């Protein structure tokens, strides 16, 4: 019999509905796995076992009363960037190590009302700034496939937890690839929706114009079920879009015949042959499913990393100003005056990468530099957007690798920020253009998973999920679990 943690969300929902298992049993199962496996991974930094069991019991009552729901009674783990009422919300930072959120993020509220059961909060790069989960105040997360390797970031805890099946699914956020890149490096499916599709309310801001919440799960079908609940307009977020949410699970099997897929030329420049071969294999799968493929070019895409590293730090330098030691979070001991309070609270509360970005962002917004950096970056951002728009005149979605390489060793890049930043070279474009993207496992290189990335036009999530789902029906990469976590 398949172990509970390897069942899909649909199968779990069926068993819960059929009263073959209870939510409390399922929750206990995952809690036991966390207890046994998390010490090796450091994927969770806060465990909420008591609340989870109470939530599971409540879900069981709802199930007993005849209520049904795709996520009702099914356990998840939230990235610690989402505010959770009464539970520490650290954002991976010393700055918020003592911060108990007084409210729920909209994503949390939506999942909670659907009956989802939160097991705990996932480790992450500090304030979502990082690509390896090494910038966390709570220490690095280990990749379940090889604990000497990083799981990617910033949603590294969410990715490792999903890969190790510590929950049925996890939430994440993606500002420059923070869902897709760790999903690729840990062999899970990660969806970054269109900017505005999911509310940002209660999600601690890194770069407001780029941040988007999404999901990490074992399959596109599971991700579809979760996104269905997460997505939708929120009056509390002015940038959330008031457009109907399609029934993603119902649209997974829409035929791919005639679907035009563009192979992104720029994504293959310098890509190692073995990785490139996996993408070519994936393309063959799509051809066999009836899709037409052609090569497309996004000429400005190579500028996406420098553009991102102007826009994101600029916004973060302002977003993180509220952490001043006055109202919440870390306050330095015995400040002598106001400047001392600011300097030491922020100096001691923030880690090196966060400080680096705040300084970069402050610099690019400064008088005399604003035009050369911030304004120029905004112009390039528009050009990248135009490139995508032109590409989507020709094709329905574009395809390429999620990352240039599989997971790298912990410590290998942490002292070289530029090399680290280049890890996001394939994912950042979608954030700059606000497009939805998905990463699905597409093979192994040296025993480590690689991700296939699909990017579509705004609000094409159902098409992306459908394409990913049908790829997963034709392949088995997403069912491969890391050794010791089967």
């Amino acid at each position, binding site marked *: 019999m398949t172990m509970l943690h390897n069942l899909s969300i649909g199968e779990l929902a069926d068993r819960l509905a059929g009263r073959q298992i209870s939510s409390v049993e399922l929750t206990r199962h995952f809690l036991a796995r966390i207890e046994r496996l998390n010490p090796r991974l450091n994927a969770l930094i806060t465990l909420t076992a008591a609340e989870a069991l109470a939530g599971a019991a409540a879900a069981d009552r709802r199930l007993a009363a005849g209520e049904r729901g795709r996520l009702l009674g099914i356990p998840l783990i939230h990235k610690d960037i989402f505010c959770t009422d009464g539970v520490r919300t650290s954002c991976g930072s010393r700055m918020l190590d003592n911060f108990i959120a007084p409210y729920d993020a909209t994503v949390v509220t939506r999942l909670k009302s659907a009956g989802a059961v939160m097991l705990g909060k996932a480790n992450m790069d500090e304030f979502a700034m990082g690509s390896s989960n090494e910038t966390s105040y709570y220490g690095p997360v280990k990749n379940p496939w090889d604990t000497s390797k990083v799981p990617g970031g910033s949603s590294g805890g969410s990715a490792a937890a999903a890969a190790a099946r510590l929950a049925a699914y996890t939430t994440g956020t993606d500002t420059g690839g923070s869902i897709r890149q760790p999903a690729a490096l840990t062999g899970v499916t990660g969806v970054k929706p269109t900017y505005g599709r999911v509310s940002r309310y209660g999600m601690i801001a890194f770069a407001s*114009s780029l941040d988007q919440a999404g999901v990490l799960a074992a399959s596109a079908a599971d991700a579809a079920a979760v996104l269905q609940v997460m997505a939708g307009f929120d009056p509390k977020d002015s940038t959330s879009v008031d457009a109907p949410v399609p029934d993603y699970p119902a649209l997974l099997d829409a035929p791919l015949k005639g679907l035009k897929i563009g192979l992104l030329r720029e994504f293959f420049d310098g890509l190692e042959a073995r990785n490139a071969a996996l993408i070519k294999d994936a393309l063959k799968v799509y051809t066999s499913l009836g899709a037409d493929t052609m090569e497309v070019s996004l000429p400005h895409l190579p500028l996406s990393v420098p553009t991102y590293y102007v826009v994101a730090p600029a916004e973060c330098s302002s977003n993180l100003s509220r952490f001043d030691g006055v109202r919440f979070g870390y306050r330095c001991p015995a400040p002598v005056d106001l400047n001392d309070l600011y300097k030491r609270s922020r100096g001691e509360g923030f880690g090196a990468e966060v400080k680096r970005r705040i300084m970069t962002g402050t610099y690019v917004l400064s008088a005399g530099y604003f035009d050369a950096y911030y304004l120029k970056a905004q112009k390039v951002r528009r050009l990248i957007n135009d490139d995508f728009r032109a590409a989507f005149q020709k094709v329905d979605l574009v395809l390429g690798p999620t990352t240039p390489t599989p997971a790298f060793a912990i410590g290998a890049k942490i002292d070289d920020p530029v090399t680290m930043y280049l890890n996001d070279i394939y994912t950042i474009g979608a954030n700059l253009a606000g497009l939805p993207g998905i990463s699905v496992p597409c093979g192994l290189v040296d025993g480590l998973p690689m991700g296939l990335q699909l990017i579509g036009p705004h609000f094409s999530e159902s098409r992306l999920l459908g394409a990913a789902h049908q790829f997963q029906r034709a392949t088995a990469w997403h069912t491969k679990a890391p050794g010791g976590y089967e």
Partner: protein
Amino acid sequence: MANWDVVIGLEIHAQLATKSKIFSGSATAYGAPPNSQADLVDLAYPGVLPVLNAEAVRMAVKFGLAIGAVIARRSVFARKNYFYPDLPKGYQISQYEQPVVGKGSLNVVLDDGAVKTIGVTRAHLEEDAGKSLHEGLAHATGIDLNRAGTPLLEIVSEPDMRSAKEAVAYMKKVHTLVRYLEICDGNMQEGSFRCDANVSVRPRGEAKFGTRAEIKNLNSFRFVEKAIQYEVARQIELIESGGKVIQETRLYDSDKNETRSMRSKEEANDYRYFPDPDLLPVQIEETFIEAVRATLPELPDEKAARFARDFALSAYDAGVLCASRELGAYFEAVVQTLGAAHAKLAANWVMGELSSALNRDNLEITASRVPPAALSGLLARILDATISGKIAKDVFEAMWRDGKTADDIIETKGLKQITDTHAIEGVIDAVIAANPKQLADYRAGKDKLFGFFVGQVMKATEGKANPAQLNELLKAKLSGGKEPV
């Protein structure tokens, strides 16, 4: 002073009279206990987001239309970044390069009656900060965030004013306008209406502006006038003694009546403005603008022109009566019962007795102890010669005090004017008989004694003799039936 031109521009901050804050649902009422009107958004908790209050936009558009300004179809909120404990987010949300209201203008009437047009560069929406509290706290500073997030309309003028008096006239005009539009309560003590003044001087005839100093946070018309006067004198004295004005921010100390340097341009913050990614650009449709236009009341200038035309009032009188919507309404109510022909009488009383009584008791016109109907009742008694204008002033005082009608007071106090010729003649005869020496002197050419006789008759009649009749009869009696010499 005579060799110098003064150049003044004002940045007026008008607190918009919305029920809730500009980006949160918290109430904006004044005077609540500290931090009782600050929610998670105002406190800038991690993860919260601003949502624009549409009412604030409507009010800004209303102002823009009232000054004939261009309404931006697309305006953008920007972040002004600086650290201060009363600024919870570490940035203020304001509008920078793309304000909601563009160029407009309004007219002010100067002391000599001349009309001057003052340009308005722009008006933009922004949020107010909280405030720091020091009283009663040892070794600590308290932060009250009730005011944080209160909507402000910052109205920036062109450097069009040439004296402190012009600046005050302009500020008063804007004050009148925002209250007419019901977008600001205009309460200056509570800080709902305040301004920063940019002041510079240049040698007369020079085209280039001098270096300006900005005087911050002036919250009364008197302070604006005095602060500017002080600052102008300071700058002239400085230049004439060989010094140079530096660009800086200054504070006005009303106790000492002086301005003091707060920070120089070099020490000024680099605010690192950039568009706020949490808020979409504000898109304003033509239909919205027209809907707002339809709600505009009769504006002060229109009303004053109508008063001058329909009631034959001077521009000055009409302007004073239109200084507030409520005052204009009061005046019109009086005229309505009295008749347009007597508008001047009504105007004199509203601007005279009524205004001084209101000032004395520190009351708003809407709280007047003599309502419009009561005042017209009083004025009607002057017109029908029941009482004289002089007696009417006493009656008015009694009305103000007791809240009774003019007729009640005239009746109970027996103040009805004596218009019976025989009765007045009787009193005159008695007065003349009692003052033979004065009569002889008068007849010998001491004309000034006429006033003495008037006074005596009025004294004897307790002021009730009809003045016109008295004059006529007295003249005849004093001249002894002969033509005066």
